[in-house]
């Protein structure tokens, strides 16, 4: 009996340790990551920064999300989103919303601006821990490198 309890306690401790390990997220400065993408990735058009309320025109952000976003000031599909959510579940929800947004954008571009639809096929979308990052640019390789560097 005693041995059983000890075993269960050890198992619980192990599970807690593993759980805590999974919860440990790399601490990323979301604003700095957004800036890095804006400055180091090549964009064809000028990007305009979206306010939080402007971003909500396009996406429903889970409560407690900190987000930085830019969209093309012209008609290209170029855009950046860096979001830090309150939880990993929220990040997954936001990522799904971004995927749906991209599908809508792709349909529109396929019909009216086919060259932008091609650009969207190179969209870089990543979710790690509580972070969601999107970058649409012809320079997808640089975007990918920066995201990998920051999020690990």
């Amino acid at each position, binding site marked *: 009996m005693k041995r059983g309890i000890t075993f269960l306690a050890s198992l619980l401790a192990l599970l807690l340790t593993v759980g805590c390990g999974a919860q440990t997220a790399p601490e990323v400065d979301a604003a700095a990551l957004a800036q890095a993408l804006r400055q180091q990735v090549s964009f064809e058009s000028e990007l305009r920064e979206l306010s939080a309320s*402007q971003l909500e*025109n*396009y*996406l*429903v952000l889970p409560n407690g999300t900190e987000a930085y976003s830019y969209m093309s000031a*012209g*008609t290209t599909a170029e855009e950046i989103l860096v979001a830090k959510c309150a939880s990993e579940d929220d990040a997954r929800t936001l990522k799904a*919303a971004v995927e*749906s*947004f991209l599908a*809508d*954008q792709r*349909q*529109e571009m*396929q*019909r*009216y601006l086919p060259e932008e639809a091609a650009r969207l096929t190179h969209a870089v979308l990543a979710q790690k821990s509580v972070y969601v990052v999107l970058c649409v640019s012809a320079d997808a390789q640089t975007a990918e490198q920066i995201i990998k560097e920051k999020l690990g």
Partner: protein
Amino acid sequence: MNRRHRRRRRRTKLWMLAAAAIVIVAVVLIAVLSGKKSPATDSGDISDPVPADTNVDQPVTPEDDTPEEPPKEPYQTIAITGDQEQYDALYRIGDTGFEMYTYVDGVAQKYAEAVNRTADALAGKASVYVLPVPLSSGITLPDALLGNNLFDDQAAAEEKIGAMLNASVHYVPLNDALMRHRTEYIYFRTDHHWTALGAYYAYRAFCGEKGITPHELRDYTKDEFAGFLGSFYRDSNQNDQMAAHPDVVEAWHPVTTEAMLDFTDTGGNTLRWKIIYDATDYEAGMKYNTFIAGDQPFTVINNPDVTDQSKCVVVKESFGNAFVPYLVDHYSTVYVIDYRYWGGDSLTDFVRENGVQDVVFVNNLSAIRSSYLIGKLQDIT
């Protein structure tokens, strides 16, 4: 043997009595119920093909002197003809494509918010009209497929959008107006747009809401541009049946011959153009661009034949292009804003600064389910 026979006869009699009782009860029930209006009719059930302009809320009493409006004809039916194939978001039946449609409530709410916000901001200054345009998959799709899992009910979607709009918004539902003509050439087969004939029926509905008299089709001069193979042709990997039977773009010129169109392109250049341009030499996929120079960020059409300084602004994506020519004869100036590309920040500021009286939103149901497009619309409202 005899006793058994008698018992059987008695049982048969009992069954006959029971059957007679059921028939009597059924007859009485039918008589009682037929005297009542069904609750669905009272509430204008969206599945009921009663036209939107029929006032279903008006109680009709036998003493009422006003003659009852004769019931409208039921919609014509459309059967499936040809093989069927699905490609991503497109469904093809023979030589005809249909966009698959899902109603997205969250996006529809944002759309209604954008319209309501505009109407509130312009209260007392301008009237706001809204025409949500059904897709062909809500109107000309064969009946057997309407409302199945690939095609949400667009009449119901229209009803939901209408219910979200403020009372001050002039709502122009189009589902019934187009269903009444569903066997006519009101949508292209090889492209996702409506034809100018479909847009004409919408124009008539708009005139009804605005209280003006529409022109008849015979008042206009018509051009035809054959050989149109649009987005459905491309999305179906250039289907052979569509290639063998391309669309014809019909275009009706405004009655006035004096109106001038100037558009500003995405590069900021302003050009003078024709309201209906000769699309004969356009590529097969570009012939819808005959209308108002295609999708330009900003367009102004001045009609010197209308001298009352009336002005409207149409807020649209491409479905609006085929609709705008009909408005030209009713206003001194028609402004057209394609919210996807327009560089302005505020629609309401534009309306105030330019003394516009009517704001007309012409937006198709596919746009009203797109988070990207309605986000763009929200940006300017």
